[in-house]
């Protein structure tokens, strides 16, 4: 575990994995787009508007996953005082924010033809917007607070608070009466999405995860070089 948190080891690993990701990302994305836009069937109620799902759902999932990982690494860094962990959460935050923006924007584009409105102050939508604010505050905290200890403490507090918001996002459709539909894909319960739609959705999710890995690896290299650049003065 400690080996995987060692920046030198991870930096070396990023170079290798980056090339691997670069080979697969474009063909998988193209296959995913073709299946989503042309090969998958229309929804029997929403028609072609349901195709927005193929970018909206993976984006929302990845934005939640990124914040959950950020919280995990912040807590890990806070408890065990491992400085190098900050490189991981600093690399994850901009990716999470981008996918959060995509999820909200595409959700709005999906809302207009299905609900007749671009936006509603519904529990799911509002909690996703709150997540965006958490991301922004989190990024500002490590960018503008120069004291590393203080920045780490603030980042951990924000991520723990944000973690409660993740629970609210997940259960908002069950706890309140919302315009947003309840989840159709469940790992434990019944999945109500047909197999013909699940395949393109799965491929798009995989493509988005590859993209997340690509940006994460590049960001990790950026953060490591920043630290090494500061170290040059101490040589």
């Amino acid at each position, binding site marked *: 575990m400690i080996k995987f948190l060692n920046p030198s080891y991870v*930096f070396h690993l990023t170079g290798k994995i980056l090339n691997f990701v670069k080979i697969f990302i474009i063909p998988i994305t193209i296959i995913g787009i073709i299946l989503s836009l042309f090969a998958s069937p229309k929804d029997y109620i929403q028609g*072609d508007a349901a195709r927005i799902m193929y970018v909206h759902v993976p984006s929302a999932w990845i934005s939640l996953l990124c914040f959950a990982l950020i919280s995990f690494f912040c807590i890990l860094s806070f408890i065990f005082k491992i400085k190098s962990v900050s490189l991981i959460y600093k690399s994850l935050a901009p*990716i999470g924010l981008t996918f959060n923006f*995509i999820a909200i924007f595409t959700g709005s584009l999906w809302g207009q033809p299905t609900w007749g409105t671009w936006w509603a102050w519904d529990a799911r939508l509002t909690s996703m917007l709150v997540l965006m604010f958490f991301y922004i505050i989190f990024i500002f905290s490590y960018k503008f607070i120069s004291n590393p200890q203080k920045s780490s403490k603030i980042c951990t507090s924000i991520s723990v608070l944000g973690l409660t918001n993740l629970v609210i996002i997940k259960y908002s459709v069950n706890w309140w009466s919302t315009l947003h539909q309840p989840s159709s894909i469940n790992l434990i319960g019944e999945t109500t999405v047909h197999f013909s739609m699940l395949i393109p959705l799965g491929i798009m999710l995989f493509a988005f995860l590859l993209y997340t890995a690509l940006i994460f690896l*590049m960001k990790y290299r950026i953060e490591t*070089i920043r630290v*090494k650049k500061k170290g040059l003065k101490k*040589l």
Partner: protein
Amino acid sequence: MNLNVFLMNDYGIYVWSSFLVTFLACLFLFLKTKKTLKKLEKDFIKETQILSQQQFENLKKQKVAKEILASHSRT
């Protein structure tokens, strides 16, 4: 050619906009990250050039620095 494939029964504007915005946001983040990475690598190399021979030898013992220097010499 069947235009309805693109018009998607008048939902095309919403569907295509969604895919386009997603693509543009991802492309923007990728290009911005790539630019920053290249710039930082260049700056790092520049700063190593003003080091003394002894400092440079010490730097070359560090795995990360060695890899950045190696990747720069390849490009």
